[in-house]
């Protein structure tokens, strides 16, 4: 299957989803008014991916800002990854800047409610 990539804008993140290597990235800003619409194509792509995932899936999330409607979409993305548990060595790397407690707390929120291993990573 093809990779899914999108260049960033001031309100939407860079998306890089490589189906072969299992390297995934969401980075930048995720503050669209309509997050569901923005993430829909990615959700559809992930549905295909989880039916035949790479042996290793590494998802890097490195966001400067995200709004609450994006947080709901992130939960859904992570839950799609749950479906690969057992078929892929899957892990989410949640990056945050050392002094950004809010972003660290958000990572902890996701860690609490999803089954995929999530590691908090301090960006220098």
């Amino acid at each position, binding site marked *: 299957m093809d990779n899914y990539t999108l260049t960033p804008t*001031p*309100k939407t993140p860079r998306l890089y989803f490589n189906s072969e290597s299992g390297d995934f990235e969401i980075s930048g800003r995720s*503050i669209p*008014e309509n997050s*569901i619409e923005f993430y829909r194509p990615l959700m559809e792509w992930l549905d295909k991916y989880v039916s035949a995932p790479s042996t290793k899936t590494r998802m890097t999330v490195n966001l*400067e*800002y995200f*709004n*609450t*409607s994006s*947080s*709901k979409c992130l*939960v*859904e993305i992570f*839950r799609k990854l749950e479906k690969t548990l057992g078929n892929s060595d899957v892990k989410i790397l949640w990056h945050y800047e050392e*002094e*950004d407690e*809010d972003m660290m*707390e958000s990572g902890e*929120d996701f860690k*609490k*409610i999803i089954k995929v291993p999530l590691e908090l990573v301090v960006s220098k």
Partner: protein
Amino acid sequence: MSDFSLMIGEFDIKEKYNRFFSEATVYSYLGHLDKKQLDDVLIHLEKSLSDSLPSKIAIKKIYNILVESLQNIFGYLEGNNENGNFLDAFVFVNKSDSCYHIATGNFMMRKDVRSIKSRIEIVNSLDRDELKDLYRGVLDIGGESQGGGAGLGFIDMAKRSSGELASEFIDVDDEHVFFILELDVKI
């Protein structure tokens, strides 16, 4: 600022706006809040914050809250198909001693006041840990809220601010009230 009529019956949005204006104002806006204006407001807001706030983290904190509250207002106005002067809104960031004071004002339907009031009452009744738990709970459920948003807006704002969310609902006409929301952010 465009020179539009600001009076609706006896209600004068400019008078409410002026209440908040002071030498301590870091950013303010009064005008329509449709898609294009919302984008412009966010760009100017970020620039104003970058010019006057002490640190990147302070900028992030304030910007985060305002993205949430402005998109909340925008989504509300869009969902109600409001038009004309009822699209007017204002936003303020004022510096006070040890924190930043944020105020927003927008028109809303009288019939929606009760649900907004109860959301604010709920978040005001919770301490920080309870707010965190509520946020996680709503996030865990997934799906859209009645308003088409995530149902997390007020919870998120309450979590990021210090003290209570202060609200005021001012009569405008039979169908509309003007909603003012104020909160403090400690940096």
